[in-house]
């Protein structure tokens, strides 16, 4: 039998593997030219999708803890949240570098003109204060109450991300609907949980 401590270590390694493997995969595909006619587009889509999945998974770690009572979820939440931020940052950078090819006047114009870009940039920007305040010392300095309030922004960020994906979709809404369903489920859980455990 694994001790509780080794269980947590194993889980943290699992999270590490789950978050890093997609990077190895996309790097491998890029290197071997397996990303099709438009590799830049494939990278932008892949980083965005991975980032959004990880962001929703981060949110899901809360309910997972409430339902199972296992602290491993809370301990690994910072780790997976930072990975989500990393992937979404990679998403934006690959859009700027690979898709727009560093054409700054157009990048700025698209950020101003296009709603899906605005929502995407807003969603990622909201994650910056969360990433910055994820360090233990900052968290302690802020106080738990303020920290928890601030980190509820993750719901807003995820909603902006799903909206961004929704706007971009052409004709087939199956994938964005799945993302939306998961987000709504997580929000619903959070609200019901708050009502049931109000003190």
């Amino acid at each position, binding site marked *: 039998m694994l001790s509780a401590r080794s269980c947590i270590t194993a889980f943290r390694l699992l999270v590490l593997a789950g978050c890093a493997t997609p990077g190895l995969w996309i790097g491998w595909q890029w290197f071997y030219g397996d990303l099709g006619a438009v590799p830049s587009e494939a990278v932008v889509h892949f980083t965005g999708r991975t980032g959004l999945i990880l962001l929703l998974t981060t949110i899901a770690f809360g309910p997972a803890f409430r339902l199972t009572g296992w602290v491993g979820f809370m301990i690994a939440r910072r780790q997976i949240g930072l990975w989500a931020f990393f992937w979404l940052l990679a998403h934006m950078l690959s859009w700027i570098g690979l898709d*727009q090819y560093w054409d700054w006047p157009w990048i700025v114009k698209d950020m101003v003109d296009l709603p899906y870009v605005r929502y995407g940039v807003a969603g990622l920007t909201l994650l910056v204060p969360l990433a910055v305040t994820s360090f233990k010392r900052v968290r302690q300095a802020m106080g738990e109450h303020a920290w928890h309030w601030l980190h509820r922004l993750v719901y807003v960020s995820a909603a902006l991300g799903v909206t961004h994906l929704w706007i971009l979709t052409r004709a087939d809404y199956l994938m964005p609907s799945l993302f939306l369903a998961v987000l709504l489920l997580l929000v619903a859980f959070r609200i019901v949980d708050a009502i049931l455990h109000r003190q």
Partner: protein
Amino acid sequence: MSRYRYPALPESEVTPKALFDARRRFLRRGVALGAAAAAPGLLWPRDAAAWREALQGRLDDDLDTRRLAGGEATTDYEDATSYNNFYELGNRKSDPEVFAHKLVTDPWSLTVEGEVDKPGTLALEDVLARETLEERIYRLRCVEAWSMVIPWIGFPLRDLLERHGPTSRAKYVLFEAIHDPDNLRGQRRSILDWPYREALRIDEAMHPLTLLAVGMYGEIMPNQNGAPIRLVVPWKYGFKSIKSVVRIALTEERPTPSWVAQNPEEYGFYANVNPHVDHPRWTQARERRIGERGKRETLMFNGYGDEVADLYSGMDLDRHY
């Protein structure tokens, strides 16, 4: 005398759709078999791939080539056949190539009907036998802001339409693509109102640039690119260039294309390439040329303004997008 009443049909007597479809398939086969048996001197049904053999022979000849893409390099064949929008075969760019074998093209026939003096349904080999094939190198600009340069092989749509004698009431031309949900996975979901429909104004259809293509890159049209016969209208967004056409109907009323029906705010009837009128969700000012880094400026009418701008003189292209 009492008034005649139509007997009310109980729901239970309505033929289930599956049975109805099966019956239709059975009848079709019966007709095909009967026709084959009746054909004098033919012991076997006509070869389903007859058009393929006939076309291959024609492609081996030297065809005239007209280069109409301003000398821009043609897109790699590999890219042009692996990055496609053909929702009948799935909606990822790679799906049409992966599921290409699901498109059944042998045999193929084309119906021309509506406001014409000589309507008819012809086997594709008979359509091809009437026409002179040529190669045309055109830009192709997708509404999703990417583009390619493709060497098509085909013949002007005008040549075909004139053989059927459009009447004075023929104001529009409707095109309908294959409907085969048993084989085409995309048609089992209602992302669009199947079968795919597109339409042109008669003067657009008769324009010498408007092509019916049966091949590209010197070869028979690959399935994922709209085999065996597709429309190519180089100054319009790619979705106007309907693939795998089975029916052409000349009409007096303006037909509603599938994309217009799906979202009239985003897709107009004309869909002329226009860098000044953005799609509501993205910009049309620039495009990604497949195979190139960065972006190109999109050209008005995709660079065919000298040839086609007259068709739209006096029209507000912001409103008639």
